Structures are given as structure tokens and as C-alpha cells.
């Protein structure tokens, strides 16, 4: 897995998004996971909530830091990765696949314009 996969889009807050029709899968990038260190807890209680782009949807904690999580697109939270409850380390082990955090039903496809391509994201890290 590359540090910045080519099939994803990115936000300035170091979230990645994978689009599949109307559903977006969201997680944090390798860069973010490495800066945080060993993840100990992922706190998301926005199930079924309608959020605007860049609203806070949860928090992610490591041993020594805690970071807010922001939705990269507007939409409704339709799924939360429950496996992270008992295995928060999945975010460190595989942040782009089994470390996914939430799934959104996209409400405004135009929001994608606000996100970064892999090349643009590489520039900011």
C-alpha cells in the first residue's frame, strides 16, 4: 500500500475519502496515523446525523494526543466501523482498508471540488 493511494481523495485535515456511487468511505491518512502514534480509541457517535462538509464527526485518541475528525463531504452518517471499538490499532495497521472509520451518504457531489488529489495532498505533508 502506498503512503498516498491514487484512487482516493483527501482533505486538508488528513482524512481520505473513497467514493462508490453515492457512498463515501472515510478514514485518516497514514501521515495522520503516524503523527498521532498508537491509536487507543476512536469516538464516533454521529450515526444517522446529517453533517455539512468539514463538520466535526468524532475524535480519535492516541496515547499522547487527541484529534478531532471532520467529514470531508456533506452527507448522512450511515455506517460506523464497529471493529475499531475493540481493535483501534487497525487504524495504525491498515488505515486505508480495515481502518476505515465511517461511511457517508453523500448529499452534495459538488463538495468534491473542495478536496485534494493525491498529488495535491502529497504537497501538504
Amino acid at each position, binding site marked *: 500500500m502506498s503512503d498516498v493511494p491514487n484512487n482516493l481523495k483527501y482533505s486538508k485535515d488528513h482524512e481520505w475519502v473513497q467514493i462508490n456511487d453515492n457512498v463515501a468511505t472515510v478514514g485518516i491518512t497514514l501521515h495522520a496515523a503516524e503523527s498521532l*502514534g*498508537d491509536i*487507543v*480509541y476512536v469516538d464516533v457517535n454521529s450515526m444517522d446525523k446529517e453533517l455539512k462538509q468539514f463538520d466535526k464527526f468524532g475524535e480519535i*485518541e492516541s*496515547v499522547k494526543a487527541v484529534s478531532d475528525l471532520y467529514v470531508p463531504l456533506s452527507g448522512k452518517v450511515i455506517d460506523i466501523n464497529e471493529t475499531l471499538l475493540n481493535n*483501534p*490499532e487497525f487504524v495504525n495497521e491498515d488505515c486505508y482498508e480495515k481502518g476505515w472509520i465511517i461511511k457517508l451518504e453523500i448529499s452534495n457531489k459538488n463538495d468534491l471540488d473542495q478536496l485534494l488529489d493525491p498529488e495535491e495532498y502529497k504537497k501538504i505533508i
Partner: protein
Amino acid sequence: MINKELPLLMDQSKKGRKAINVPKYGVPKAELPHSKFLRKGIQLPEVAQLDLIRYFTNLSSLNYSIDTNFYPLGSCTMKYNPKINEQISGISGFSSSHPNQIDENVQGNLEIMYDLQNELGEITGLPAVSLAPLAGAQGEYAGLLIAREYHKQCKQDHKNVALIPDSAHGTNPASASMAGLEAVTIKTTKEGDIDLDDLKDKANENIAVLMLTLPSTLGLFEPNILEITKIVHDNGGLVYADGANLNALLGVTKFGELGIDICHSNLHKTFSTPHGGGGPGSGPVMVAKFLEKYLPYPHIKKEGRKFKQYKPKSSIGRLNGFYGSFGIILRAYVYIRSLGEGGLREISENAIINANYIQERLKAYYELTSSRRCMHETVLSASRQKKDGVKAIDIAKKLLDEGFHAPTMYFPLIIEEALMIEPTESESKETMDKFIESMIKISELSKSNPKEIIEAPINLPVERLDEAQAARNPVLAWKKQ
């Protein structure tokens, strides 16, 4: 330090063992409450007295402490905790003194509190002093409550912003939040001084208070202090100084003469009361005369020859169950009485010379955060060592192997790989020289054999802990295996 397994008491427990005998009732038994209120069975360890004493004594030997090791912890002022303070606080007239007694029967205690109020007022130049807060963070919170109450009484309710430098200690924004203030960050220069332009920009009529640490968390004195306090006052705000670093200012300058309105102090730092592994502490709050009526209660006053507790006219309220941490207050007062003016001046003089000495001797090996003279502590950066893959935390762990407690790390947040070193006036040149030699050795090792630093500590009863596991699967109490 010993290196043996010390199983928890519940794992050593055996039914029928006991460590003490208690008296018989000696009176007729009364009827017990209804059975729905009664406990059936209680689980606690059962151990004999020798095993208990051995256990805790062995545990104590697993600790570093001031009595055993040098603790160059910046901002903590790990100075010697004089034994006479302990002895006097153990006098039964003090330790058995009940806090619900009427004033007439506790004149000794009230006199001590009244005198310490005055001594601290004189030292800081802020004459109205409350000894109620139970720690620095509570003193800080009290200071903010006083500011808010003052503004409220002046009908300035819109003042709800606390300006806080980005170099501040975490308790500052936490306390501001508890006091319902919006924490607005003020930029500091790379030497930790307040960025005057940013301050002028953000200082407006909504400022309730500017929270400053003086000397700053980089161990430097704010050269523009007079202008800073004036800017805040011109906007109708108050200036609060976090007095954690007061050890640099005893007899050097007074907060009250620099335009500061409110400050707190940590008796368990500047005034030698023991840290106890994390408390108890005491964080008196000192204010200018015009703010005296807002002080928490009970406050102590003198009427004629009698000492009395009272509630100030517009008091912010009660912060705790009784008077404050009296045992700690007493220890601090004993300390101040053992030193007097001359002794207190000597403290800051030596604390500052010691810190500058260490800074001077280490500057060739570690990045200095400033070329200025420091006050009582110096902040170094391990940025050079980081290039060799050695971080501040690794240096800290290696220092443990060398027999020194680590300095404060990663604080202030604005300095990369920060190591904050505060020797205090308690340390001899010989001790400091040994510490300096270890720091130099580590700096050289980071080039020749960084692995040795990264694997540290190896000489202690335990090596680096899996803190991720501790947070992921918290085990917070004994459980039967």
C-alpha cells in the same frame, strides 16, 4: 533500586491474616438498621503486618525521589523538602485540630494562616491573599472567577475572553474553559515572548483577562511586561500571572509592581512542600487590594488581637470543604520563617545562576531556544539529536539510566523536542556537573550509538512500558485471575 516481583496485595492475601487488632465495642449493642441497608460481606486484602510493611517499603524503593535523585524538572521546582517542615506539621496541636471548631479554639492555626497571607502578599506585591485553593490549577480557577466577578460587578458582562499565549501550560485553557471564558491564543515569538502586534490586534473590549506565565514557560523574563499589562488595562481587562515559576522572582521583582492584578503560587513548588508523588499541593491566589472583596472564603482577618474567619463582601464562593490544605500551608510557613528576607533572596539568585550555568555548559551540544540569559530554568531542544534518530523522550529515558530523573519533555509545545531543565537552588555544583557530563555523553552517543539511547532505560526495575495497551484495554483495579 531493587528488582523483584511485587504481587498485588490481593494476590498475597490469605484468609485469616490480619495486620492490626481493634478494641471491643465496650457498650451494649444497639439494634442495627433494616437489613436492606446492611452490607453482606466485604472484600479487601488480608495480610500480616510484616508482609504489609515489607510490601510498601519495597515499593518505595522502586521510586526516584528528591531525597534520592536529582530532578531537573522544568517548571516543577523540585527543591529540597526540609524535614523540619514535616516534623512541625506533625505536632498534635496541629494535626488533631478539627476544622469545624469555633475560631476561639483554633487561634494558633488562624494566626499561621493570617501571617502566611501577609508574607505571600509581601513577596508578590499583591497584598490580598487567599490560602483556600488546593492546588495551582484551583488557584488559577479562583483567579479567573475573581476576574469574572469583578467585570460582572462593573457591569461588563460582555467581557468573556481569556487571552492565552500558545506557550501556556495546559491548565490555563482548561481553567478558562471551566470559568466559561473563550480561550483565544496569543502568538509568541520563537523565544516565547508575547507577540506585541498580535496582542494589540486581539486586545479589545471583550477581554476579561490575559493569562501570563512569568517567567515564561521558556524560562525567560518578558522584557515588554510593562507595555503588555498597560495594553490589557487600556482595554479594561485584568492581567493574571501564573506563578508556577515564582522561584525565579523572590526578591528579584514583584508581580504587583509590574501591572499584574491577580496571580497564584504553588506552595509545592516555590515553597518546598513535598510533591508526594502527585500531591497534595496548595495554590494560594493573590490579588491587588481592589479585588480583595472577591476572594474565596473563608478568608482570615485580624481584629484587635484575635484572628477570625470571614466571608469577603463579594466573595466568589467556597472552593473546598474547609480552609484549604492546612498541613501544606503550615509547611510553607515554616519554610518561609526559616529563611526570612535574606534566605528568600538567596533562593532566586542561586536558582538563576545554576540554570544559566547548565545552559552555558550544554549549549555546544544541544540547541538553545534563545541566546538570552535564562531565569531559573532553561529550555533546550533535542532537534540536533533528532537528526540522528534520537528524540527528547529517548534522552529522557537514558538519563533515568544515568540516575537522574528526566527533565520536563515536550513542553512548552512551541519548541520542537523540548527539554526543560530547572536545577533549583538546592543542587550543588558537583551534582550539576555530573548531570552535565551525562547530557554530554548522551549527545555524543546519539551519533556513535543511538541504539543505546533508544533502548533505554535498562537499569531500572522496568523498561519502557506498553502505554498503548494501558489505554486500549484499561485495567484500573485488581481483578481475580
